[in-house]
């Protein structure tokens, strides 16, 4: 009797596709949340105006911050759900090991983050254009493009939250609240560590841009560590469908 042989790569690839197709509703959720964030916060608009009897100048600035915050929360919740006991059980109805299940979940989360970044950008542009079209007065577009480094930072922050959600979800699966609290404390610590760098995002000088890249790399580095720890933890976990 010949045995079937499957490589880790092949299995991960199939599982990623399986996960993306089974949880396609996740993408709709993210888009809905981002659109809602745009409407609720008016794209984080800030106004500055001055004028006299003949001339009135109003400067509107639109920001990705609010969409980012909502997206981060959404991605965190989705990632912790993907680490749930129920998802683990479902995973074992197909060919899998804990390692390939975890790696495929991480890849699926990264894909979700990429898509969330793209949809955030789209909803940002769409909403900004709608806001501008509503205004009948004469307008000048000073800058509409979102910088690459900003987008990369956006993506990196989503990845950190995604990794954190995966870690917390995995801890919760162990049903040890104390460990979950430690997990949450680690995440809060991460924020305290990351936020000072993030504040520089509004600056436009070269030093600020370098800091944005640095923050992004820090985020990705931390995410890698969190993912590695999570995969290690999940590798030890047993599966019970009851």
């Amino acid at each position: 009797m010949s045995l079937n042989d499957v490589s880790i790569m092949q299995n991960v690839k199939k599982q990623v596709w399986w996960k993306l197709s089974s949880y396609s509703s996740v993408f709709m959720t993210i888009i809905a949340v981002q659109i809602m964030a745009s409407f609720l916060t008016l794209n984080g608009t800030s106004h500055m105006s001055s004028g006299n009897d003949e001339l009135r100048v109003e400067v509107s600035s639109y920001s990705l911050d609010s969409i980012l915050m909502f997206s981060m929360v959404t991605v965190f919740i989705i990632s912790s759900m993907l680490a749930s006991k129920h998802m683990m059980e479902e995973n074992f109805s197909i060919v899998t090991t804990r390692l390939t299940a975890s790696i495929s979940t991480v890849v699926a989360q990264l894909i979700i983050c990429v898509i969330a970044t793209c949809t955030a950008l789209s909803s940002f542009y769409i909403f900004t254009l709608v806001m501008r079209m509503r205004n009948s007065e004469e307008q000048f577009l000073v800058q509409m493009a979102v910088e690459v480094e900003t987008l990369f930072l956006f993506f990196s922050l989503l990845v950190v939250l995604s990794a954190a959600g995966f870690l917390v979800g995995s801890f919760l699966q162990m049903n040890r609240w104390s460990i979950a609290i430690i997990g949450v404390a680690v995440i809060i610590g991460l924020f305290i560590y990351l936020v000072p760098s993030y504040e520089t995002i509004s600056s436009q000088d070269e030093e600020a841009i370098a800091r944005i890249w640095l923050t992004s790399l820090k985020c990705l580095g931390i995410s890698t560590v969190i993912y590695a720890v999570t995969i290690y933890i999940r590798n030890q976990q047993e599966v019970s469908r009851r």
Partner: protein
Amino acid sequence: MIRCEQLKKKFRRSTVLSNISFQIDEPKIIALIGRNGTGKSTLLRLIAGHLKPTAGKIEVLGHNPFNHLQVAANTIFIEEHLTFPSPFTLADILKQGATFYENWQQELAEKLLAYANISLRSYHEQLSTGQRATFNLVYGLATRCTITLLDEPMNGMDEAIRADFYRAILKEYIAYPRLIIISSHYLSEMEHLIEDILCIHKGVIELHAQLDEVQTFAVKLRGDKEQIAPFIERIEVLHEYDEAPFYEVVVPAANVDIEALQTKDVFVLNVSASEVCKYITSEAKEGIDHVFK
């Protein structure tokens, strides 16, 4: 194919399996029998690699099944609580099954589901208990995995469909021989298809033998108590029913002189494999009558 040596599994303070040792080397259909809570499902989950042993050794296809991809690719574990992603219809689940299992039998799965009147457009969560059990079993058979573990696969199915699907298991086994371990409480229903019996009791293997050996393992002696008593004085009694004027005992066949008993007007009756398993795992020789005394 499967080798267990002094396998032990504890859940916190409760020891479910205390010392399990057995070996299975060839494709066959094996019934895994035991009372409720004796560790049948735990043993199957250890073989499937879902659980990690507390102590001892388990090898499936030459590897430790916990976290081994080749073992996973050649093993399917079907149980009542099997779940699939809720957005998938049964057709989607079968389609996905085909991508993961190399020997997948799409046509067989579709035909069996059509026979059981289960629509491919249904969702797994919405099926009745019996339909879900049927679908899970069909999924397990369609994978044609080298090791197929079925944990109480017939639970919730009606009698007619149970009989049909025992036959389906047998036909599939003939078409593609593999190791099929069926954990069940309905041993009498599947005696026609199994080759071996693995009986667990109190965390250890109480019996691992071929079906015909189990079927001839014990005899039931029915007749006058005074006449039977001298023959069973020094042997182990597996079961005793003493409600005058009726008296019967079940004893190992190898330990009694059957010819001598027959000359004393004692009826010597065969004991089915199911009854043998029931008696050797019984707490009291008198059965439930003991409670009412």
